[in-house]
């Protein structure tokens, strides 16, 4: 029965035909039970009639369905109905790499990023024991959000099995699609492995760089012969401006012998990342690949605040470029002064008047907000702003959400006589590490509230500390990044000396990355069994200090370790790919200096806090050019540190007023405020791995005061809190 006769295929209703390839016809369909749109690939009948091929297809599809990776098109289902074999996949809206290069040449950083993202999908697939066997530009998709996804896992092998050995080669041009990306071993009909995918990915990379396949013959047999016998072509013979590293990656991935290729997708990804990072160190690649493409090719691109706030240019090697080197100059040039006014004087006067006016408005605004805020909190709380009371008495909860997190004061660590700048929980949550102005990096047993170890170093004024299961990192005024292997009790490793004092540190939840926020840079390190290996500086700084790396008070990783975020004193928050340090997105339009940031449980959202009473902002960093949303209930607060404690709640530590507040993000309300007398202001906060405890720290450097307070977090239903 033809599909057109009956649009239903099991529980799926076929809507329209999306396309056709060698591996079958792709339909847009609706899952009638889950009521969601999906893509369905109906496989060729020749394959469905071959029992072995079907068996293999189901087996491979099951493995592919287990793959849950952002760079792989998700397989939802696989079924056989009315003699038709079909695969149900995530519906991806975007363009294939083949479509992207069909009109214009991609700038090489963009092509490299695309291949790196696809390679990341391959790493996951190979680790799951899945070999793709048909990597090519038309199987690499870039979504409208800029996410790169590999499609058609598991199909090639099944299709190959449905053919005789002779057919699989002699008819490959017709049945399996183009042999332009086939590895030599595939051409010879030999078993394939993960390195065969790397060959195909290398050939695809060549095509993205040059807009032509490595061996552009028209006859399949000749193409396969070339794959087996001819030297790997140099993409620079077609585009001379390409860097040597691009050619080197193509050459290694397309080596005739598997033993000469990258040993794994991970190794190839490292080479691609290194190339991308070198681009980042000399040039700024704009977040969002379309900006890169448009600007680098000289096409019209929307110049938004994002562009304006990044004063470096896209790689000018490929750009050829219509963009000003200094966008801020473009901004100031848009202010036109009458010629008869002496420019310097009038500008100075105007600036002073504007500043005075702004200060006046700011004071009025702050006062109004503060008053309103206090009134609002008072109206909802029976016990507000109590200072120095007992733990049970001084905590109030304002419950507007169905569940609220409430804090109970547990106690304070004893004997601290210096301002504590950083705190971090151990991986098991049983102890906490502190970093103090006196140079001490200490480990404390939480339940016993006593110091168990002092990590000695030559450090002075330690500002930040971060811990993984294996490593403890610390750094501060002396600009040295220190590392200890927690269990070994070996002396500290002096990893590197940064060009400026270290302000903040974070280790990714998977323990593989260490981020260092300094007064003038953000650096990324790989943590391995030997210690830390510097990947590179994820931002550049310049003399104008306009880059997002000025006074980086906070660095943090997303819960899935994919992203790194940082805030800077230059009114900027940035998100980087934690694997390679490439800038993903940046907001540079905040009014005030930013001090804190953390990722929210919802995908691709983060919350950051500002100095100067600006409060909190929520930002969906995956949406191109999306603005951040201020949390109105937090206006009037200096946000020194933020901790996520629930699905929709954050706890915020203010810098000067000593009050910890919790906010419900969706409702935009203050749901709790907690305070225990401290000798001075707060500097930092950490949440235990199980989310049941937080520690706050602070102090006063001038009077040699410091504290670390322990709080327990409890979730209570709304009814019980009011």
């Amino acid at each position, binding site marked *: 029965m033809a599909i057109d006769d009956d649009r239903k295929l099991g529980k799926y209703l076929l809507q329209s035909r999306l396309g056709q390839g060698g591996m079958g016809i792709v339909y847009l369909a609706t899952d009638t039970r889950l009521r969601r749109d999906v893509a369905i690939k109906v496989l060729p009948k020749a394959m469905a009639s071959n029992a072995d091929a079907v068996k293999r297809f189901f087996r491979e599809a099951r493995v592919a369905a287990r793959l849950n990776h952002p760079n792989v098109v998700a397989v939802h289902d696989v079924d056989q109905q009315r003699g038709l074999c079909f695969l149900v996949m995530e519906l991806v809206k975007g363009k294939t790499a083949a479509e992207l290069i069909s009109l214009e040449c991609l700038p090489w950083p963009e092509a490299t990023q695309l291949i790196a993202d696809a390679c990341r999908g391959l790493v996951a697939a190979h680790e799951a024991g899945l070999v793709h066997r048909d990597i090519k530009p038309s199987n690499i998709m870039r979504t409208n959000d800029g996410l790169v996804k590999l499609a058609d896992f598991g199909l090639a092998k099944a299709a190959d099995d449905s053919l005789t*050995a*002779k057919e699989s*080669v*002699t008819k490959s041009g017709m049945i399996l699609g183009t042999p332009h990306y086939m590895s*030599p*071993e595939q*051409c*010879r*009909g*030999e*078993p394939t*492995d993960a390195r065969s995918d790397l060959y195909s990915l290398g050939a695809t990379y060549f095509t993205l760089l040059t807009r032509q396949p490595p061996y552009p*013959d028209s*006859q399949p*047999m*000749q193409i*396969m*012969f070339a794959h*087996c*016998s*001819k030297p790997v072509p140099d993409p620079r013979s077609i585009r001379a401006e390409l860097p040597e590293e691009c050619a080197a990656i193509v050459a290694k991935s397309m080596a*005739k*012998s*598997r*033993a000469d290729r990258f040993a794994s997708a991970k190794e190839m990804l490292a080479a691609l990342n290194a190339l991308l990072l070198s681009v980042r160190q000399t040039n700024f690649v704009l977040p969002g690949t379309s900006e890169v493409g448009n600007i680098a090719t000289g096409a019209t691109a929307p110049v938004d605040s994002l562009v304006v706030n990044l004063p470096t240019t896209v790689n000018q090697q490929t750009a050829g470029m219509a963009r000003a080197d200094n966008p801020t100059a473009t901004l100031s040039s848009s202010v036109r002064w009458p010629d008869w006014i002496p420019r310097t004087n009038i500008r100075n006067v105007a600036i002073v008047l504007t500043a005075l006016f702004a200060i006046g408005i700011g004071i009025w605004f702050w006062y109004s907000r503060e008053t309103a805020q206090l009134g609002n909190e008072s109206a909802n709380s029976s016990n507000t702003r109590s200072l120095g009371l007992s733990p049970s008495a001084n905590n109030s909860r304002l419950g507007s959400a169905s569940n609220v997190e409430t804090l109970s004061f547990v106690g304070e660590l004893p004997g601290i006589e210096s301002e504590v700048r950083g705190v971090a929980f151990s991986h098991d949550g049983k102890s906490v590490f502190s970093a103090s102005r006196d140079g001490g990096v200490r480990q404390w047993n939480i339940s016993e509230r006593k110091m168990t170890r002092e990590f000695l170093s030559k450090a002075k004024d330690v500002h930040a500390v971060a811990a993984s299961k294996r490593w403890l990192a610390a750094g501060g005024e002396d600009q040295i990044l220190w590392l200890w292997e927690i269990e070994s009790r070996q002396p500290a490793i002096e990893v590197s000396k940064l060009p400026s004092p270290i302000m903040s540190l974070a280790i990714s939840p998977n323990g593989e990355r260490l981020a260092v926020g300094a007064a003038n840079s953000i650096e990324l390190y790989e943590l391995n069994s030997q210690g830390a290996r510097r990947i590179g500086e994820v931002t550049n700084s310049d003399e104008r200090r306009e880059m997002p790396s000025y006074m980086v008070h906070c660095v943090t990783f997303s819960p899935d370790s994919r992203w790194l975020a940082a805030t800077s004193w230059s009114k900027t928050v940035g998100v980087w790919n934690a694997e390679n340090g490439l800038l993903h997105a940046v907001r540079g339009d905040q009014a005030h200096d930013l001090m804190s940031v953390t990722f929210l449980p919802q995908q691709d959202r983060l919350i950051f806090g500002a100095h100067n009473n600006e409060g909190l902002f929520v930002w969906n960093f995956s949406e191109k050019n999306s603005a951040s949303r201020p949390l109105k209930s937090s206006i009037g607060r200096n946000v020194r540190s933020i901790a996520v404690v629930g699905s929709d709640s954050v706890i915020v530590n203010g810098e000067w007023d000593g009050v910890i507040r919790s906010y419900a993000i969706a409702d935009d309300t203050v749901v709790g405020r907690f305070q225990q007398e401290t000798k001075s202001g707060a500097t930092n906060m950490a949440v235990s791995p199980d989310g049941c405890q937080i520690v706050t720290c602070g102090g006063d450097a001038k009077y040699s005061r410091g504290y670390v307070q322990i709080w327990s977090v409890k979730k209570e239903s709304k009814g019980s809190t009011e």
Partner: protein
Amino acid sequence: MNQVTPKSVLEQISTCWPMISNPVQFVMRYARAIQKYVAAIVRDPHDAEEVAQDFLVRVFDKSFCPENVSRGRFRDYLKSAVRYVAISHLRKRRAVELSEEMLASIIQPDSDADLAWTHEWQSCVLERAWQSLELYQQQTKDNGFYSVLRLHTDHPQKSSEELATQFAEQLGRPLRADAFRQQLRRARKHFAKLIVAEVRQTLQNPTAQTVEKELVDLLLMPYVREFLTVAD
């Protein structure tokens, strides 16, 4: 001179060689040797390109399936086929220019071309043996033949202790130096068997004598001599 047309030579190549189930794939396996040989006998790169294409088109069309052929070494037939496709191609393109001297150089190529052919063929046999050894290791539990032999080949100056340490790092399982040496001997033996198996595929009636002759001709004896009796 015995007038043999390209077509007749191609038609002499048969799937009757014992193990060649897919001649096209087999040609791909020795593609590098063919490419080098074409380049050696047809000096002009443009001509060489076209000769290779012509050859492949004929292989694709004819698929080596004629009858009534005398058989021997597959590589000899392949070499003859390449040579005569080259003659045919050049005759077509340069009927006027083609001198007897040029024609003779193709029909009776100089020793450099033969050397290139033999060298590349040998390299293809070895590569095939390496691939088979690696596959064997992947498919056999606790087998480390490929890794052991590769380490020894890549680092001939290193001691067994050093190589055993490197092996342990690579494969994540400990191996003592004496165990490494034992594995190495077994790996060599298996590698020799794979070489012989590959050579046997290219001979019509592989006997101990013909296999040995082919191994000698291809300069592969050093790899298998020690194990020849077993391999044979």
